[in-house]
């Protein structure tokens, strides 16, 4: 925005000054003067028009930092690591999640207060906002970019909106097999205008097919396990994994063969060790896929689990500094970065994937909540809530290269997410 207004002023003032100085010299011939003024005004108007039209820029290096306590997002660019604008009035962002439009221009922010806000990154303004429920947790955008679905806690279920107008397209309650409403978690997009999500209270997985938005078709998988608390879809759109809080293990659905049903993997992965109290729910959408392995947080243990994606069996465990919250692979899969639950949340650890060893322990600030890699992974942005800053690291040297002020920052989301299934 600053850049825009500066160029507008500089561009507009020169032709106007020229017209004002030149006109009196032509005072004897009124027709010529009129012509001159007309042409001068025309030139000035053209110059103004050119100057007023926004300076063109792409959106591929844009991102958003959530300032959760203030209901605000900061729009940033990751080429020079600078702040472009701030957008307020997004409501309660206690647990803010967002998705990108397929043109990478807009973000759809899901607020805890049920607000769905569409933010225009180029103008730094709110392009639309609806308060669609009492309490929501997250959402997803369809493969074709036409629909955005919000997962709700109160009342449970999902609501689906048109991404252009934010008009309500479908309202799908989550009444489980036992007849009770359920909180919805772990929503993600699937190929073909479908959304998949889990029913927390009921232990079910549902797929909503909105090929015809007026008649959503539901596929339900019941009895998948107790208290699924979050889930993810792998980047190829094939596997849906729901972490279970009420029991050991993970519910796995092969979306290429949904008729085979949900199966359980990693049963008893906490066996033999007394699990610790879990002070923060791990976030599964950060689960890292590196090589042919999936790296994920062990619940209630100071460990990261490595799971073979072919057999879905545990391949290794890596000891880390605390209970992992986000376990995220650098886009090339060579490194995995981990942050932790309170009280170990001032630490970030870097694991070398081939050797499965922690190669660096970093202290970027107090209360590290989230990490986001730049699209090709040369840098990672880390939010330090209680230090009121976002810290940027070079992922090769593991040195800090930039720092941005932010008020109680939580999530960081770059626009490259627009083109990834499940994000």
């Amino acid at each position, binding site marked *: 925005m600053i850049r825009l207004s500066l160029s507008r002023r500089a561009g507009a003032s020169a032709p106007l000054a020229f017209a004002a100085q030149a006109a009196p010299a032509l005072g004897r011939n009124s027709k010529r003067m009129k012509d001159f003024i007309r042409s001068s005004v025309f030139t000035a108007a053209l110059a103004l028009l050119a100057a007023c039209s926004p300076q063109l820029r792409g959106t591929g290096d844009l991102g958003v930092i959530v300032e*959760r*306590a203030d209901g605000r997002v900061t729009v940033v660019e990751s080429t020079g690591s600078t702040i472009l604008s701030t957008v307020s009035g997004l409501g*309660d962002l*206690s*647990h803010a999640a967002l998705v990108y439009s397929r043109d990478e221009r807009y973000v759809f922010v899901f607020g*805890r*207060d049920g607000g769905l806000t569409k933010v225009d990154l180029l103008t730094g303004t709110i392009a639309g906002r609806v308060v669609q429920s*009492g*309490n929501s*947790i997250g959402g997803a955008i369809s493969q074709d970019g036409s629909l955005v679905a919000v997962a709700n*806690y*109160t009342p449970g279920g999902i609501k689906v909106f048109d991404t252009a107008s934010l008009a309500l397209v479908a309202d799908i309650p989550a009444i489980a097999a036992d007849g009770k409403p359920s*909180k919805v*978690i772990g929503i993600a997009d699937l190929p073909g205008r479908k959304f998949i999500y889990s029913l*927390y209270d009921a232990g079910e997985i549902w797929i909503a097919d909105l090929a015809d938005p007026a008649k959503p078709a539901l596929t339900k998988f019941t009895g998948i396990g107790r*208290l699924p*608390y979050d889930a993810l879809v792998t980047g190829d759109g094939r596997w849906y994994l729901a972490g279970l*809080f*009420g029991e050991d293990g993970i519910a796995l659905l092969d979306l290429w063969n949904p008729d085979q049903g949900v199966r359980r993997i990693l049963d008893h992965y906490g066996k033999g060790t007394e699990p610790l*109290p*879990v*002070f*923060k*729910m791990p976030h599964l959408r950060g689960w890292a896929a590196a090589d042919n392995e999936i790296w994920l947080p062990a619940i209630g243990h100071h460990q990261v689990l490595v799971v073979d994606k072919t057999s879905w069996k545990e391949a290794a465990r890596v000891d880390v500094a605390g209970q992992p919250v986000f376990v995220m692979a650098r886009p090339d899969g060579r490194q995995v970065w981990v942050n932790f639950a*309170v*009280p170990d949340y001032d630490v970030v650890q870097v694991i070398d994937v081939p050797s499965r060893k922690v190669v660096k322990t970093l202290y970027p600030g107090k*209360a590290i909540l989230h990490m986001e890699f730049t699209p090709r992974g040369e840098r990672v942005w880390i939010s330090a*809530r*209680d230090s009121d800053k976002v810290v940027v690291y070079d992922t090769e040297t593991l040195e800090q290269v930039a720092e941005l002020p932010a008020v*109680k920052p939580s999530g960081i989301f770059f626009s490259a997410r627009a083109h990834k299934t499940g994000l």
Partner: protein
Amino acid sequence: MRLGMTLVLIGLGLCASAAAEPSAGRRDQLRDMVAQDCGSCHGMTRKGGLGSPLLPEDLSRLSAEGVVETILEGRPGTPMPPWKSMLSRDDATWIAAYLMGETE
């Protein structure tokens, strides 16, 4: 005699329940913890999330002791963890009063 005994018992009871209030600095930390760490599940405005709402009207049906026990020991079978490794009983007693709207 019985009256005297009762008074003594009441006195003892008061002593036992009168927790030492955390210092001003600690209270700041606890307010922050309620907003941020409890807020992760219960919402920063305490209207609930994956965890239940924690507004005074939601907690009014519970006893202060019950709230303190839940904070310290957690709720088995739910994601509510025991916080006793990070909070003393005095901390938890103050948080319970804070949540129930009895102190600021």
